[in-house]
């Protein structure tokens, strides 16, 4: 189309190859730390990572040629870094993560292939709401659901376990975006007066509150407060973005504080989380063990880290999932941890850039919501691991071990690229009718 097309894709290719080299180099370093020779499977790893990236890149070239050039390489870097860290902590998990990465890239390509127009998704909002709800409820189903680490979040089919909640998040954001685009005028203004406050009719707010309430209830039943918190924040944020009314943020904060108090008094593990957050060292040998080991990891890492393969991240329980950031901090130090933060910030920046450049309200809101999933999730887990906020277990996007989360993040990436591509092209059908009828 435009002159910027080859340039964007050329940047993407160049950056992506650099990301692949970083991942392969990291893998090499881990192996060198154990024995002095170049591992025999290095070339296999390099070739397969390169093949995966090139596959995704070619798909973008064909299916979304005008889209943002930095998202795919950034995801490739984080995914590569994550794979290196996970494989270093547990080679077995590393192999599974490699398979999930391939599945994720396939999901990425399929999303680009099937979602040709983002407006099609808007039309099926209630379908996605329904499917999202079912996905949330699925782990509670007897026989299907599985409890791992005290949270009933998993669904097991044969040998494969996955968390349908990860996909549900994306679908609920889609529903919220489509619904809010329809009703934002009504929600922004409000018609009913209570005291000095104008609030919208309950029937406009109803479906939203219902969707939100059920999902939070379900998550609390599954004792996954991290996800519940995430969904809550997501919904409040999207309401604010759609209506531009700060009152929704204040209401969300009040509700959040209320919910926190209830959760604190009702759930023992919430109390534990708060206690270990305030004073982890007092519980260093029991409740706070994980958090303290994570902090020790960061301390051992210092400025530049112990070097890949040279630290002791296996000391930290769940180092490959929730505490992967601590493992990065230990072996790559402050420099490595900050690099991960910068990469995540650049992804969020790219997502918000897509949102601001979107012309229609639906992609604007949808891109904001999808970006917020990545941003909030990163904040919640990095904040938890570094003791900025109480710890709640969610995955670090693209880095943590976990198939469902990885697939969901790559699908989010594909959807963002689809909207980015639409932005760059403008609205083609509208433009052609204008051109045809211009005097």
């Amino acid at each position, binding site marked *: 189309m435009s002159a910027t097309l080859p340039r964007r894709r050329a940047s993407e290719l160049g950056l992506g190859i650099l990301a692949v080299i970083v991942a392969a180099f990291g893998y090499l370093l881990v192996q060198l730390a154990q024995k002095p020779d170049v591992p025999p499977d290095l070339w296999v790893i390099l070739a397969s990572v390169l093949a995966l990236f090139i596959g995704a890149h070619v798909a973008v070239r064909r299916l979304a040629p005008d889209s943002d050039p930095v998202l795919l390489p950034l995801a490739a870097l984080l995914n590569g870094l994550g794979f290196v860290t996970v494989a270093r902590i547990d080679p077995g998990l590393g192999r599974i993560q490699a398979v999930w990465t391939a599945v994720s890239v396939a999901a990425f390509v399929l999303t680009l292939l099937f979602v040709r127009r983002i407006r099609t998704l808007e039309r099926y909002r209630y379908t996605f709401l329904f499917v999202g709800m079912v996905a949330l409820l699925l782990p509670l189903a007897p026989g299907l659901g599985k409890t791992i680490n005290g949270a009933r979040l998993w669904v097991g089919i044969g040998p494969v376990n996955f968390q349908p909640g990860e996909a549900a998040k994306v679908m609920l954001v889609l529903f919220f975006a489509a619904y809010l685009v329809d009703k934002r005028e009504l929600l922004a203004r409000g018609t009913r007066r209570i005291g000095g406050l104008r609030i919208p009719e309950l029937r406009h707010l109803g479906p939203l509150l219902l969707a939100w309430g059920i999902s939070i209830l379900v998550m609390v039943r599954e004792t996954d407060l991290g996800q519940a918190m995430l969904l809550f924040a997501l919904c409040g944020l999207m309401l604010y973005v759609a209506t531009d009314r700060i009152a929704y943020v204040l209401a969300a904060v009040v509700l959040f504080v209320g919910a926190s108090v209830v959760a604190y008094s009702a759930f023992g593990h919430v109390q534990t989380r708060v206690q270990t957050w305030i004073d982890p060292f007092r519980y260093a040998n029991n409740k706070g063990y994980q958090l303290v080991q994570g902090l020790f990891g960061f301390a051992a890492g210092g400025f530049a880290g112990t070097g890949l393969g040279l630290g002791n991240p296996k000391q930290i329980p769940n180092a490959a999932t929730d505490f992967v950031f601590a493992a990065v901090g230990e072996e790559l130090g402050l420099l490595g941890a900050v690099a991960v933060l910068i990469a995540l910030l650049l992804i969020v*920046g790219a997502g918000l850039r897509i949102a601001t450049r979107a012309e229609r309200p639906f992609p604007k809101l949808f891109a904001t919501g999808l970006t917020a999933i990545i941003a909030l999730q990163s904040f919640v887990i990095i904040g938890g691991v570094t003791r900025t906020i109480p710890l709640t277990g969610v995955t670090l996007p693209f880095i943590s071990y976990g198939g469902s989360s990885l697939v969901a993040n790559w699908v989010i990436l594909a959807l963002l690229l689809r909207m980015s591509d639409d932005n760059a092209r403008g609205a083609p059908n509208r433009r052609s009718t204008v051109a045809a009828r211009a005097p």
Partner: protein
Amino acid sequence: MPESVLTVLKYCFLALVYLFLFRVVQVVIRELRAPASDEAGDGRRDRRGRRDVRLRILEPESHEGELYPLGEEITVGRGGGCGIVLPDDSFVSTVHARLFRRGNEVFVEDLGSRNGTFLNGDPVSTATRLRRGDRVQFGQTVAEVVR
């Protein structure tokens, strides 16, 4: 493998990661300098290089697709002196509304018309900013803001 070599390699690795991030930031800056949206297409701009805003009639069907460039200021009405004349809409006042530009923004203002001017279905009481894709209604005539 001696530890010193591994340390050197570690710094090489971190340098490579930051080189990557630096290159990404360079691309982002380039993206921000050259606004992406429709560089290829309807590059109609006025003398000062601002993109021209136009009004496209959607209803009634007999006038659908007619395009009116707005320029600095234009009046809409049934009277012949208006910039956009809508002679066959009896719900439109003689001088019905005014569209004008302030800086990069375009506003619509009702000029005391009998049946009012509506922006996306809401009555326009003061000068209101128009955005691309907005629907403006004068009488029974509906128009869309396009670039």
